[in-house]
């Protein structure tokens, strides 16, 4: 028995060392594009990588595969946290990361700078999206902008007039009480902060991701009150879709792609943007530091921001494309206008998902609540 336990300890040591040893062998930026490796493994938001299996008319993967010989494998990430976790595994080549994941991935050496010279379509990307704090460090691009949009409100059209305010999501006297669906992620605390910006201006919140302790506590109190009117917290977009289809949810936070999918199945719903300003995203395709198929990953980055593919994904997911030439190619000629593709004034009211840090993002000289505490608070709220 002694031998056995000695063996166990030895093995444990090896496993522990192995688990902690890796991480520093991050790859460098690609200098030259080589031959494709035959495959590429992606982590993406639902609806970003479509090969026609969801809807035969929605396909920007098949022609990519035919052109480059890179077979596309996709793993859907349901939240930014999940994407960070997946990218840490080192099994994937590229990721469509939102602003609340990008800096964490960069800081963790999980992604490498992207050589934009190897991505011809980068030239056509809206200038307003290039070299932003969430996709670059010291002027070095860490990825290519995919597109941007706002988190919307979805409502059942038979349940009454269209809601206009985020107050309907939080107020205990909301006409939708009991049938409200909330995105199940710590980043949703920012939505509560936007609600407080509108209803309790004396708190002085200017950026929903820069909350000091008092503001943070107020946001949690709002979420605690909201709990009694919530019918469902959705983590999987398919859960939200099913609830919209069977009518058990009549108001909720949503992405346009969920609305499209549910409407195709007959759900009587519409989406709208509330007047107070909303949380949103500006996504970036990034390349893993442990990419096993870096060439195919670069080809994918170039493809997904090509005018045609970017128009397709922007229209399917319901967001503004990043490629300025995409606007001429959308099936709905008004798509870019509807989603405010080059309307910087509109996007100034959208608070892109970003990772809260101790150092306040709005530049105040107080200590803000860091993201790890957002996670703990959200877990406790949901426990």
């Amino acid at each position, binding site marked *: 028995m002694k031998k056995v336990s000695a063996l166990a300890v030895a*093995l444990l040591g090896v496993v522990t060392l192995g688990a902690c040893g890796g991480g520093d062998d991050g790859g460098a930026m690609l200098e030259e594009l080589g031959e494709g490796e035959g495959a590429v493994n992606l982590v993406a938001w639902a609806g970003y990588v479509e090969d026609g299996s969801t809807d035969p008319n929605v396909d920007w993967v098949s022609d990519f595969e035919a052109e480059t010989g890179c077979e596309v494998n996709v793993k859907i990430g349901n939240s930014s946290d999940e994407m960070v976790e997946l990218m*840490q595994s080192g099994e994937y080549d590229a990721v469509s990361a939102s602003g609340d994941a990008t800096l964490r991935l960069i800081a963790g050496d999980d992604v490498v700078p992207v050589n934009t010279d190897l991505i011809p379509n980068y030239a056509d990307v809206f200038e307003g999206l290039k070299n932003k704090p969430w996709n670059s460090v010291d002027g070095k691009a860490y990825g290519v902008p995919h597109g941007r949009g706002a988190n919307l409100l979805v409502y059942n059209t038979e349940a009454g007039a269209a809601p206009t305010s985020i107050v309907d999501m939080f107020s205990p006297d909301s006409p939708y009480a009991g049938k409200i669906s909330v995105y199940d992620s710590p980043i949703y605390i920012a939505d509560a902060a936007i609600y407080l910006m509108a209803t309790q201006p004396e708190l002085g919140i200017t950026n929903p991701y820069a909350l000091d302790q008092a503001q943070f506590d107020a946001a949690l109190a709002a979420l605690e009150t909201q709990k009694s009117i919530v*019918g469902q917290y959705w983590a999987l977009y398919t859960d939200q879709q099913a609830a919209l289809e069977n*009518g*058990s949810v009549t108001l909720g936070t949503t992405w346009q792609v969920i609305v499209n999918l549910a409407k195709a199945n007959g759900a009587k719903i519409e989406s709208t943007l509330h007047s107070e300003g909303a949380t949103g995203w500006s996504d970036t395709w990034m390349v893993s530091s442990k990419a096993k198929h870096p060439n195919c990953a670069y080809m994918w980055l170039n493809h997904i921001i090509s005018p045609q593919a970017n128009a397709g994904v922007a229209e399917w997911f319901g967001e503004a494309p990043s490629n300025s030439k995409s606007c001429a190619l959308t099936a709905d000629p008004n798509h870019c206008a509807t989603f405010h593709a080059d309307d910087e004034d509109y996007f100034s009211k959208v608070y892109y998902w970003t990772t809260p840090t101790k150092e306040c993002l709005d530049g105040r000289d107080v200590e803000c609540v860091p993201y*790890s505490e957002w*996670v703990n608070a959200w877990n406790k709220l949901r*426990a």
Partner: protein
Amino acid sequence: MGERLEQAPRVNDSGRNFAGRGKPRPAFALWGLLTAPLAWLVIVYVGSLALLVVSAFFSLDDFTGKPTTELTIGNISEAFTQGEYISLVVRSVAVAIAATLLCFTLAMPTAFYIARLASRRTRRALVVALILPLWTGYLVKAFALRAVLAPGSEYGDGGFMSGLVGWSPGFGYVAVTLTLAYLWFPYMLLPIYAGLERLPNSLLDASADLGAGSMRTFRLVMLPLLLPSIAAGSIFTFSLSLGDYITVKIVGGTAQMIGNIIERALLAPNQPLAAAFTLWPMMIMVAYLAVMGRAGAFKNL
């Protein structure tokens, strides 16, 4: 009767003798046989459990979400002192106990009918019918119950139950308990059925001859003799229920159990905190096994 019961260990003894007889180096052969499975058990099972306990003391790099080997008891104190988490653990244990009791209440009469009352042919058919669900996928069964329990509303029809009965418990802890009981029912039924089959008729006859009614016979004769079987069955239903987090996602609505909070912490990603949470079910299971061991759950292994 006492003699009959005590025979079981003796059969084992002679079996061991038989296996050893005629082989030149029994110890060598034994180790040859056992090394591979033992190594597997130690490395994969004990090793990963030990790793889990160790990593509960690691700290987390706030920003990147990667564990660092700097030791801390912060995760443990977070998982074990916060009221929200303690209440979550209490709720999870309550669900596991409720599911176990429900399984027992349904399995007892069913097993009695099959083992004692049914004709030989019916018995075989019933045993097959009750084992059959074990060969069906977990997700298929959970989603089936989702389709049954879905609440109706003015904007949709809801599931079969609200369609047929006009009422359904909706998604929540009740639905979770019902689904778990449905999922693990065979694990409770089979040990009780096996125990009942071994129960000598003569004991029940004697009890009746001495004037005990059926309830009294059940309480004073059958239950004590079946206790090890019931305890064995309850270990399955309790541990499987306590650790479940997928059923909660499918039929739980806003409900959460320990498993969900572990998954949340893991995806956060906060691996050390997730490891700290896993100590809860580990401790509960050790305590539960100790109690069930006293009830004789391992006597028939």
